Every structure is written in C-alpha cells, then in structure tokens.
C-alpha cells in the first residue's frame, strides 16, 4: 500500500502541482479553514470541516456562459472559454465527494442513471469538463463534531462515493494511506511519485457519527405535509440569507444575469438560493414564496423530498456546514429530527 507521513501532505500537494495538477486543499486562512488553491508553503489542515465545499471548483460562484461584442446597437457572439484545469481535490471531505455525484444528476442528466424525460439533451458542458478534469481525494474523517450527520443521510465518515482515491489516517495519526479507487486515482498516485512510499500501516478507525434522524421518515413526512404549521415554527429563526446554500456542497440553484461595458457583454451564471426573497419574485410583483417559512420549506423539501422523487437520492450529504455557519443558529438536522419526532407522535 502507498503511505506517507502525516506531516507530508504538503509534499504530496507539491508533487501533484509539479505533475501539472491544480491542487485544491483545505488550508487555514485566518479563523477559517478554507478549501483553496494550494500554493507552496501553505499547510494543509484537515482538523475540521472547511467553511466551503469543493463545489465552487466545479461550479464556480460566477461564470461567463455567453459573451457578445457590442457595437452601438449591434452585437455579435464571441466564443466562451471554459476553464477546466486538471485538478486534484486533496484531503477534502467524503461528504463533499459524495455531493459531486448528486450534482452530476442535475448537470449531467441521463448518464448518471437518472430517469429523465425522453430526449432530454441539456447537459452542462462546463460542469462535465471540470468534473472530468478533477480527481477527488477525500480524507476519511477520524473526528466529527456535533453538527456532522452524514450517517443520517446515507453517508459515512469513510464513504467513498464520488472519490477517485482516498486518504486514510493510519498508525494513530502518524501516517496516511493513499488508496486509489479508479483510473483517475491511479493516475494521481502515479503522478505523486516518490512522495508516496510503499509500506504498511494500520488504518485508524473512522469517526463515530451517531444517526440523528431517519431520513426515509423525513422524506415520507414531507410528501404529505406541505401545509404543516411546523414549517412556520421551525423557520422562525431564519433571517433569510444564503449562507446555508452557498456553503452547501449540493445546493446548485443559480441565476443568469448580463453585465456589460460599452463594448462587451457577458452573460453570467451566478449562484443563487431559494432562501432569498427575490429568488421567485415575478416581475408582476407576485411571489409564490412570499415568506421565509415557505422559502425554508422549499430548502428542506428540495433536499429531502423533491430531489428524492426526481433523482432517487437525497440532496444532502450531512456535512453540517449549514448548521455551523448559520447566523440564526439553525440546523437542518435538528429540523429533520423534529420532523421525525412529529411523525412518530402522529403515528401514536
């Protein structure tokens, strides 16, 4: 097996960078740990779940999707260059890797075994190009905090869904085992070269993440409780920002807006979220989701009901970022637990 000393993650990053990879990895940045492009000298920090997911490296916050040259009142289309560098997402989280499989269903329909209307042809070229160019190497979590709930949504601290290779802490945290799981992972191991030694090490046990609610029960309850008063109660604390959606590895809603100078116009795809009141506001003034309760319901329903119905899986991997970062102290796992309990109470 391929092993490396626990303090040599940066050497691995350096070797991969030298082999032509853009390495993105969790690096401490002030008070936060942030997944960002690794630069020589940066220390990779796997001690906590980073504030951002790897989503933004495959689906950027803003992206040019069309471009026009403007001349007076005339315009002409210009080519769009999609940036899809060969990337290694190193020492990221298993819940992030799993999320990319969920996003494939949206951006690469048809190929991910998703039922879709006949002849649906709209795949996202930019997503697919970046996905293809990215090798995802999560690190098995050996510690979890009270906001982690991957095991409640079908994941695990050592899950390998979406992973091309996996790093495991070994020998009591002194070493990492790097295990390739597919051709992209093997290519990455080969590119890492001598940084990885052939050796033996005993993998440390993964973190214990208690199951906090029954996701199937939540899905079931959501199906029949669109009008439940519970939505109004649990969403009282929601202040209506997009913190939860933008740190979420599976949230993928976006806006399309134009921006222009006198000579050039770009059509931009920007992240957007159902949590903001403008999201569904019609130009007539009508808003189908007029209050935060209906917007919060949409968030939970989309992840635990609609997505299940449409794509056959939950749109949540239990990373817990939304709970850690919510300015209103909300936690989706807590709400799911309440739903689970409400359902049990109703059955009795």
């Amino acid at each position: 097996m391929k092993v490396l000393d626990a303090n040599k993650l940066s050497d691995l990053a350096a070797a991969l960078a030298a082999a032509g990879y853009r390495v993105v990895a969790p690096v401490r940045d002030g008070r936060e740990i942030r997944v960002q492009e690794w630069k020589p000298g940066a220390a990779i920090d796997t001690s906590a779940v980073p504030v951002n997911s790897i989503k933004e490296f495959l689906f950027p916050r803003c992206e040019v999707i069309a471009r026009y040259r403007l001349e007076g009142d005339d315009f002409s289309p210009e080519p769009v260059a999609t940036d899809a560098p060969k990337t290694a997402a190193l020492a990221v989280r298993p819940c992030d890797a799993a999320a990319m499989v969920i996003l494939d269903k949206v951006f690469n329909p048809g190929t991910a075994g998703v039922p879709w209307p006949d002849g649906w042809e709209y795949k996202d070229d930019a997503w697919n190009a970046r996905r293809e160019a990215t090798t995802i190497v999560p690190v098995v979590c050996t510690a979890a905090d009270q906001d982690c709930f991957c095991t409640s949504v079908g994941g695990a601290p050592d899950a390998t869904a979406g992973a091309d290779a996996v790093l495991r802490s070994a020998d009591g945290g002194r070493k990492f085992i790097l295990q390739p799981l597919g051709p992209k992972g093997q290519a990455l191991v080969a590119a890492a070269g001598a940084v990885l030694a052939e050796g033996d090490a005993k993998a440390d046990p993964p973190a214990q993440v208690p199951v906090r609610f029954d996701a199937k029960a939540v899905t079931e309850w959501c199906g029949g409780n669109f009008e439940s008063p519970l939505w109004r109660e649990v969403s009282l604390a929601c202040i209506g920002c997009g913190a939860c959606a933008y740190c979420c590895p599976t949230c993928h809603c976006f806006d399309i807006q134009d921006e222009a100078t006198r000579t050039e116009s770009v059509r931009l795809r920007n992240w957007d979220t159902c949590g903001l009141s403008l999201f569904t506001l019609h130009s007539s003034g009508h808003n189908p989701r007029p209050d935060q309760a209906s917007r919060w319901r949409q968030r939970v329903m989309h992840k635990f009901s609609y997505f299940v119905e449409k794509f056959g899986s939950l749109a949540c991997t239990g990373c817990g970022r939304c709970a850690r970062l919510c300015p209103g102290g909300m936690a989706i796992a807590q709400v799911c637990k309440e739903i689970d309990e409400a359902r049990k109470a109703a059955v009795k």
Partner: protein
Amino acid sequence: MTLATYQSAMMKIVLARDEAPDVRTLRLRFAEEADRARFFQKYRVGMFGLYGVPGAGESTFCVASPPTRTEYIECTFRRTGRVTAALADREVGQAVTFRGPYGNSFPIEAWKGKNILFIAGGIALPPIRSVIWNVLDRRKEFADVSILYGARTVADLVYKDELAEWGSRQDVRLVTTVDPGGETPDWKGRIGFVPTVLEQTAPSSAHTIAVVCGPPIMIKFTLPVLTKLGFPPKDVYTTLENRMKCGVGQCGRCNVGSVYVCRDGPVFTLEQLKGMLTADM
C-alpha cells in the same frame, strides 16, 4: 469550448407592434437557416424560449406564433423590468438573442375532432394565441372553436386586429369582456370578470377541451366554474409561467413542488395541477 446549453440563436426583428399600453409584439426571423430548421423541427405549440438583449439579460416567454408559420417566431410581452424594457426598445432591423424551444406542448393532435374552448385573461392571451392560430390554421380538423378573452380595460386587450378577425369569422365564437369600469362608451363586448362571463355563457363541456391561461387570480376563480360546467380535469389545460433562468431544469427557480415548470411543463392539465403543490405557484 462553447456552452451548447446556453448558446442562443441570433434573431432579427422584422416587425414590432404595440398591442396595449406597455405590451409589445416582436416578430423575429432566424439569422441562420440552420437555427430556424432546428427550431421548427422541435417546436410544438405551447413551448417557450428565452429572448435576450446582451447587456440586459434574458427573459422567458411562450412562443406566440404557431408551428404552422415557419418563417418567423413571435413573442408578446409586457414591459416590466430591465430585460423587457431592452427588448421593447429594440427596433425593426435590430437583433435579439433567442434560445429554445423548451418545455412540453399542448397535445393538439389528440384534440382532433373535438370542440375547443379557449379562455384567457389580459397578457395571458399570447401563450395560447399560438394554439388558437394552430387550430385555426388547421380548422377542418377540429369541431367548434370558442374563445373567451377578457382584460382589465379595453386598452389592455391585446391582438386587437386578430380579435376583430376572429370575431368576424363564422367558424369561431369569440366573446370578449372587460372588467367593470374598464369599458369605453363604444365597447360592444361584455362587461364582467372572466369567470363570471364564463358562467353566464356556460359553454357545453361535451367533447370539449378547455385551454385556460391568465393571472393566478383569474385561474383560481375560473377552474371551479369549469368544474361546475362539467369539464373533467384531464380535459382542462393551462400553461404556467414561473420565473425561469436556465430553461433546462437546472437553475431550480421554477420549482412547484417537485415539478420543474421548464422541464415538466409549462403545459399542465387541471388533473396534474391538482396533484401539485399549488401553494407554491
């Protein structure tokens, strides 16, 4: 690399017409024959597209012209925001962008031989105008055709020339109405809200398909009347217009429950709507 999904066709405005205060129709010709051919290969009545002006953005409207007219497409829209203002300010000869057609369509092939009742309110006539013309262009294939169209005021009625044309045809029964107070001294149509006038005219539901489109408040009060008149929910069609950005089932904006209006709609039967979370509409 080009992002095929978001690639728009270049369109030239060949005709622009003001329909009502702030309501404008643009007739667009495809600059490239390949784009035109691709469009009409796919286009069925009821589908929509995204019309854009670089620098302002894209807006979603139904294609208001029928697939039986293959040289151009038309759209009719109200000037309400940044994009619609930019579109409205474009002049004949200038260009706009278009991508589509997207969404599903009215199954008019299955309606052959049946009576068809169109009910529309205000700016919601354009989405079913394409159906009306499609049916009229193939008039012999259908039985009775009735149109009930209402608007807030006489000035707000769109397609006035076409209303006159439909009204003068022997093979179309047209009823126009304006809201109380919206009439002019020389107004010859009815006065009253669409649901009320529908109830008064009480069209037969036998062998009849109803196609309804209007603002949410009109829909809300019209559907019960149709039910009362005996229309089975599976024979009542409507087209939803939620806010959309991508048009292709990704951006998550047009969700009504698990339904993506852009992908699973915009055409729904009342039967389908009943199973949907209409509170989210």
